[in-house]
Each structure stands twice: as C-alpha cells, then as structure tokens.
C-alpha cells in the first residue's frame, strides 16, 4: 500500500516469526483477531462518520472519515431513471509520511480498493439508485461519499466498507416536492430528511496470506495436505507490506457473496478458499449488528425530546 517504506531484513524476520507463533506486533494473541472497531457519529449532522480501529492499549491505529453529500444533477443519458453514486477515496500526506498528496496511481492498491468498494455497492444494488430520481431524464440526486484517511496503520478496506455503509445508512437527503416540473428542495427546518434506500449491507473482509516456504516449493507440492501459508485478519501497516497475497470477500448477512476477489499473489488450495468464505460470515454478522446498534443509539439521542413534540395521543390497551 505505502511506497518507499522499507522494512529491514531483521524486522521482517521478526514479524514473520511472531506470525508463525500466532502473535502480532501490536499485542494481539491470535492471527484471526481484529482490532477494536469504534464508530463515532458526529451529532447534529447526517452521514458524517469517523470510524476507527483501536489498539489493545486504546490508542488509535487507523482512523477514517466518511462523509456523504448530495446534490441535484442531470442524469446520465443511458440511465435517465437512476441517480448517480460516486465514492472518492483519498490518501494524502495526513495519513503518513509515505503517502503523497494528489497522487493515486492507477496501479496502486488505493485505486484498487476504492474501486472495489464502489463496485461492491453499485453492482449489488446495495444503494437503490431508482429512489434518487426526481424528474426522469432531467433531475436526479447525486450521492457522493468522501473517504479520507486521517491515520493509517492497515485495515483500510474493512474500515472503508464499514464506514461507507454506515454513513449511507445514516444519511438523510433533503426532501423535494415537484410541482409543474418545478423542483423545490426543502431544508431540514421545513421538512424532515429522507433516508436513502439501502437494500442490504455488504461488508468487505480481507484475508492476508503469508507464505512459509519458497514459491517454487508451494507450487510444486500438493498443498491441500500440507500447510503452506499463514492467514491473518486485519493486518497492521508493516504486516501489510510483507504479505504475499490477499483474499477479499464482501458478504451481506443474507448469505450472499457480493464481491469475491483473489487478485493474484500466493496460490492457495481451493478448499481453503471455501473455508475462508464460510469463516467470514460470522465476523460480518457481528460487524453488521455493531453498525446498526451505533446508528440506533445515535437515533435515540437525536429524538430525545421526540415524544414531547409528538401530536399522537396516548393509547391505552383495554
């Protein structure tokens, strides 16, 4: 991910030895343990979310800012009934010394991951674009998610996918009324915002592979019997630079694969791939419930005085 960050041979060996004895550099005791996920929703705003991974000692390892904005635009000529959606992933100098400003090469991991999340949401119809249409062929909503990396120590893909989905679930766009082809956009004071149509919640998970043997040995041996690689979840930056391959899977809790990618790298046995896919499901279910809970808590705080303002009569049973 980061360029020009060289790891000395001694450190490399140390990290590998740690991994081989299922220890992590930041004190985690298992290869499959993830860091603590924390979702912070900015009060008084819609779709403005900070999402962070915390280390065991409570310090912040990775922190992302996801913000959803919307505007009224003209739709694409081929799809007059659909709104548009765009994700902008940005790594800049803020994330670390090894990232350059305004330079996202087309062959870089950032580009690849950003694109993966975009197609994860778009191709699986996670965001219903037809609900974003105001007047067919003339005016639709353009939803844009900006993902900024504020602090970086690995785990970009998971955090970005969780952040994007949380902010989309949380966001409310202004309500509109159409009268005689005239569109009025109401501010939040006039009318309450409208939630986006999120049909299901895909979340990506990245399995990182570390090879234990020489590549030639792995390819020539019958690996379904032997154990040739280590698999780790949620790598730190240093581990990320040393990895020999990855396996990315995006699932939703309806047991559907939304994206599955193994972009080259270390070959692994087909059986193990299937195993990983099944392993990912409980993790994703857990993350999804965490996300929904965070949104629910925020909702409750927002509507603290909702019952006072309600014009609804109390009803008593019986």
């Amino acid at each position, binding site marked *: 991910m980061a360029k020009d960050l060289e790891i000395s041979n001694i450190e490399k060996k140390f990290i590998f030895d740690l991994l081989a004895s299922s220890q992590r550099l930041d004190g985690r005791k298992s290869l499959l343990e993830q860091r603590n996920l924390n979702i912070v929703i900015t009060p008084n705003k819609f779709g403005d979310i900070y999402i962070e991974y915390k280390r065991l000692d409570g310090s912040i390892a990775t922190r992302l800012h996801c913000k959803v904005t919307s505007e009224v635009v003209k739709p694409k000529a081929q799809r007059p009934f659909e709104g548009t959606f765009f994700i902008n992933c940005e790594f800049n100098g803020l994330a670390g010394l090894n990232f350059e400003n305004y330079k996202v090469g*087309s*062959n870089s991991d950032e*580009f*690849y991951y950003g*694109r993966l999340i975009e*197609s994860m949401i778009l*191709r*699986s119809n996670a965001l219903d674009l037809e609900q974003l249409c105001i007047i067919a062929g003339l005016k639709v909503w353009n939803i844009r998610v900006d993902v900024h990396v504020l602090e970086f120590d690995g785990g970009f893909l998971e955090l970005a996918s969780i952040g994007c989905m949380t902010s989309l679930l949380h966001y409310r766009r202004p309500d509109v009324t159409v009268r005689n082809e005239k569109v009025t956009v109401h501010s939040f004071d006039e009318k309450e915002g409208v939630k986006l149509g999120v049909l299901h919640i895909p979340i990506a998970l990245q399995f990182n592979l570390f090879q234990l043997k020489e*590549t*030639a040995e792995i*390819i*020539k041996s*019958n*690996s*379904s019997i032997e154990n040739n690689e280590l698999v780790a979840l949620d790598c730190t930056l240093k581990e990320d630079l040393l990895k*020999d*391959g990855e*396996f990315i899977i995006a*699932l939703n809790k309806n*047991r*559907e*694969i*939304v*994206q*599955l*990618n*193994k*972009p*080259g*790298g*270390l*070959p*692994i*046995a*087909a*059986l193990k*791939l*299937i195993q990983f*896919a*099944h392993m990912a*499901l409980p993790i994703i279910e857990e993350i999804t419930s965490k996300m929904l809970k965070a949104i629910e808590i925020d909702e409750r705080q927002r509507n603290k005085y909702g019952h006072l303002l309600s014009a609804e009569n109390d009803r008593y049973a019986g």
Partner: protein
Amino acid sequence: MSRFEFFTSEGLRIDGRRSGELKNFESSITTTSNFANFSRSTSTNTTYLQMGQNKVLVTINGPKEPTNRSKIDITKATLTTTINISKFSKVNRNTNKSNLPDKQTLEWEYEITQLFSKIVVLETYPKSTISINVTVLQQDGGLLSAIINCITTALINNSVQIYDIVTAVSVGIVDQKHFLLDLNHLEEQFLSSGTIATIGGSDEVCLMRIRDKFPLDLIEEFVQVGVQGCSVLKHIIINQVKDMNLNKLVEIQ
C-alpha cells in the same frame, strides 16, 4: 429476469454447447516479417489466441534493461502489464472519446500484474523489466480468462521462466443449480458469473473474481467446476504449445 433460456431441459446452452464444455480454443505464434533480423529478440514474437469469439494478441517485451533507472530492482525483475481493448472489439462501438483505459481495464491490469509476478520466476532476471502488452481485437464473454490464458501461452513461447502454466475459465450459474463453464457474451451479461484461475491444472487457485451477487452456499460447486475446467484447459494449452513450436522448428530449418 432472463429473457433467454440459458440452459434447456435437454442440457444445451444458447450456442449449442453442454454445460461443462469449453469454447473452441486456438492459439498461434505470429512472427513479424522481419523475424530473421531479430531472431534472438523475444519481442518479435506475438502470440495470438482465439477462445470462442475472444481474439487476443499478446506481445512480451523483455526481459530487458529498464529505460527508467529508478525502476531497477536488484534482486528480481519487475513486471508491467498494459491492456488495450480496441474500440471496435464489441458489437457496439465504444463511444468513450478519450484513449485512456477505463476503470475495469485498470483493475485487470493490476490483477494480472499481481498474478504473474508470483508465477514468473522473477529472481532469474535481476535488474530487468518484463512488459506484457495485451491487445484485444474482439471480445466475447470471459475476456479476462482469455487474456490470462494468452499471456501464459505467450510467456512460454517467449521462453520466460515460469513455475507452471496458469489457466483461467469463467463460470456462471443458472437458476441456482446449473453451472456453465466458459461463458459467452449473452450469458455473461445476464447471469451471475466469475472468473477462476488455477496453476498447473491443480486445485491451487491463484486468481478468483466474482463481481455479481452470488449465494454463499454454492461457492463450493462454483470452485469445483472452475478447477475442473482449468485442468482440462491446461492439457489443451500444452498440446497447442507443443504443436506451435514444432511448426516453428520446421520453419527455421
């Protein structure tokens, strides 16, 4: 959703193949007319692959000294891939004005570079670059798999050291139960599909890519069908490479 019957009760697909049947696969080395002048230069060999209606040309340039000194890696060679999908390759001409590749192509470039940098024995060519240039002349379904197969054949033809042969096929699913191997254009458009690449015809998966919604419980069969297809394809490629090189030998003598 499907307006077409992709898999009839007799077990036939739209183009008359059976479910596990591969498209016709043909590859050849084209040598440019000035072959004699540069007979030692590897870049004059172009490998042409026709997989169904996919027509792919691959030239491999290198191993050679990199033009940019900063790109030198002392321990191993660096691999670069460029894919050029010609605008006339589809039924509808691509209306995109700019000559820059689209995002999908860039993604493929990334994946293919990652894939082949583990397959090519890069340590044997230190301080050099190997660049793979792909040109797609015509596309049908499963273009990524055709490109990967063509690159493998090209690497062999150019005598670049590789650990083993990589083969790729696309797999689609009809009605949640029938698996179709090596999709054509129509099938790819309407079915959930994915590409799978294995090394040496074994069950070692080195690339896998599913971009559509796909039920988790069917992944096992998906992989199984894909791996089988790949191992069949491996034998086809080996036979064709042998035939091609025999022809080449005859030509030289």
